[in-house]
């Protein structure tokens, strides 16, 4: 029996799926995608899935949707090229700089969502006790957050090394079996016997699912928190995979311990709209999902949005909100200017 055969076609996953919510078409729904696999027909929907896996949380029959779509997807050359670049954040940064002003829709779209890139922060102490793993996008798009995380970990008395690399979640979601496996294998080697703190919560979730032993930054923070408070009012976005793996629970615990005032948004784990590299390839659906998300955030009345995953933060910033990582709240608070 294939994974698709566990689906009883009940449709319970439909309204959980961002691409269904904005299209209301069976083609762009989890049930439709699974059915197309089962019937062996090619359907546009296989490509338009954002791989947020919210459908898995909604499914009463336990359909392993993530695995299923990973197995059937084939990566296009453009996606492959971009993923290869992201594997090495230094390279990504240089590519980004040199591509400014290039007149390709893909490049333009990237620059639209990522207004600024910085060279990844390099840092290494002798015999480090902790590896800080920012994740590819975080390292180039949110250097300041990486710095804040570094400061926080160091303030707890640890020697740190930053490891700039890629967990391969994008590769995995786009169906690149070989490369996503290879990346995990590489990380397994490099993480061996070390304590690893991962800063992008969806990467934490992916690495954990792939059997790597990593701590999400929120979990690290929770164990190292002192009796400290932050006077702040925010709303919280729960990144999809981190939510699926229950990691967002520790983020919320840290927030609670810090005494931060939270005004919840509607469906905090509703997809941000970026979907890894999705916003680049399916701008129309991505934009509409971002609109729906923005509506939900807006109704909370808050501008400051806690988001522990870089792609989500970019999407939120694109919509005019001010995304914050937990590390920014812990170390970068003076910049926040709570009003």
């Amino acid at each position, binding site marked *: 029996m294939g994974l698709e055969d566990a689906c009883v076609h*009940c449709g319970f996953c439909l309204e959980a799926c961002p691409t269904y919510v904005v299209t209301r078409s069976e083609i762009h729904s989890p049930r439709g995608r699974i059915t197309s696999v089962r019937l062996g027909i090619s359907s546009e929907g296989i490509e338009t899935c954002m791989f947020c896996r919210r459908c898995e949380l909604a499914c009463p029959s336990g359909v392993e949707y993530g695995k299923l779509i990973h197995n059937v997807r084939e990566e296009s050359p453009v996606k492959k090229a971009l993923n290869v670049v992201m594997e090495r954040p230094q390279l990504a940064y240089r590519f980004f700089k040199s591509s400014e002003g290039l007149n390709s829709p893909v490049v333009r779209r990237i620059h639209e969502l990522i207004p600024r890139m910085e060279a990844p922060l390099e840092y290494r102490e002798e015999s480090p006790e902790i590896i800080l793993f920012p994740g590819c996008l975080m390292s180039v798009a949110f250097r300041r957050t990486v710095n804040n995380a570094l400061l926080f970990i160091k303030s707890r008395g640890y020697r740190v090394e930053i490891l700039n690399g890629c967990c391969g979640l994008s590769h995995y979601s786009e169906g690149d079996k070989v490369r996503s496996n290879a990346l995990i294998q590489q990380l397994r080697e490099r993480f061996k016997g070390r304590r690893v703190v991962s800063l992008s919560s969806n990467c934490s979730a992916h690495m954990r699912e792939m059997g790597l032993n990593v701590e999400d930054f929120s979990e690290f923070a929770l164990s190292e928190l002192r009796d400290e408070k932050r006077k702040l009012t925010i709303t919280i976005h729960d990144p999809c995979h981190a939510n699926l793996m229950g990691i967002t629970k520790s983020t919320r615990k840290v927030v609670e311990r810090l005494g931060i005032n939270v005004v919840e948004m509607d469906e905090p784990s509703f997809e941000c709209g970026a979907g890894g590299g999705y916003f680049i390839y399916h701008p129309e659906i991505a934009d509409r999902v971002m609109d729906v998300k923005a509506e939900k955030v807006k109704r909370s009345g808050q501008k400051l949005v806690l988001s522990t995953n870089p792609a989500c933060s970019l999407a939120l910033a694109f919509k005019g909100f001010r995304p914050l990582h937990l590390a920014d709240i812990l170390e970068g608070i003076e910049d926040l200017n709570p009003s």
Partner: protein
Amino acid sequence: MRLFKVMNIHDELASIVGEKWVITGKETRLYSYDGFTAVEGDPSMVVLPGNEEEAIRVVRLLLERQVKFVMRGTGTSLSGATVPLGGEVVVGMARLNRVYSQSGLEIEVGPGIANAMVTKNAPPHLFYAPDPSSYMVSSIGGNISHDSGGVHVVKYGPTVNSVVSVRVILAGGQVEDVEYGPFLSSLPIFVGAEGTLGGILRARLRLFPKPATRKSIFATFDSVRDAGRAVVDIFRTGVIPSALEMMDRNTIRVVERSRYRANAPDVEALLLIELDGSEEAVSEQENLVSRVIKEDNGERIYPDDGGTKLWNARKGAFPAMGVVAPAYLTLDCNVPREALPDVLAGVAEIGRRKGVLIANVFHAGDGNLHPLIPYFPDKAESLKLALETSAEIMKFALRMGGVPSGEHGIGIEKLKYMDMYYNKEELQVLRRIKSVFDPGNLLNPCKLLGGCRPRDEVTRWMWEWD
């Protein structure tokens, strides 16, 4: 000929809704069945209008060209009411999901809106009462067309009690607003019509004030018969619970293997009871209910989380069957409450005789049974056995004073029981009504009243007696 007719209108449909909202080719198969998966239809085309005006133009065009079509909401029907058996065009209404207005105790919505979104868009002190387990996704248009119920039917009634008016498009292309009224009101006829009399374009729904308190009570029983008796006795005390559900041992075991695991005790029967109203009323009812539970040899249990998980397990019990088999039949014969203990015993006996696992999870308070019969769709004998078993249960339930469907509809699944339940004259009256509304038989043919020939083995098993 049919194909030619349909190809011709493709461009015209596309000019109404936009090219990308007309689905052709292989992808139409994604609309070839709904929550009832035993029979796959063959839609010739799928159209997804984006608003009421587009929907009207689409329907008028189809009518003008004499093209048969099926309206579809979310496609969660359990009786196959959206399955296009003869190459019909599917008109998907899911995009018509607007809230038009809300005032007082009423809300006006498009037919594609999900049930759950109605309460979400209502003022915080009001709620939309009919709540089929599929409420997170199933559409108001579908709910109306199946007169769907849910756990709160026992107190608030099925969908028909919460519809104030509907706007329909009729087979002549006219658009009418029909309201409830004392004289020959035509509103109720569209409730439960399964899309065979007209298309629902919008609906004005009734909202109820949220009760001051709600209290859940759970009780276990060592025999299904005792549990059935407790249901009857609760009503005897004068209490009308806002929900009264039963799960039998098979169901409990299934949900405990699914993601709805609730640490439910492994017992013969579990009653899930909800009382609502003012504080005093609820506490008085609780005393009465507790006494009945004791007298009927039951035992109250007190889950740590107040019972949220048990209620979720109840709501997810159907699809949780996925852990047993990838498909299942869901019967929903309604029987008089008093007959419950005997009917349940009889159903268990049929299961034993046929060697089929039957899981019972149902609205005990209104006598609405839901025997679930799992089967393996890739094995024809397995489906045949499931269909035979359901036929036996149906015959038995009808003998005990039941009706063929309490809330899931007739669709294509229960057609042969209509012939059993109604006599020839009654059926003739129903068919005459249908032909007055839809003389060309263009709207959702074959459903509800049948009239089509079996097209394969499975439809023959479903529609004909041996």
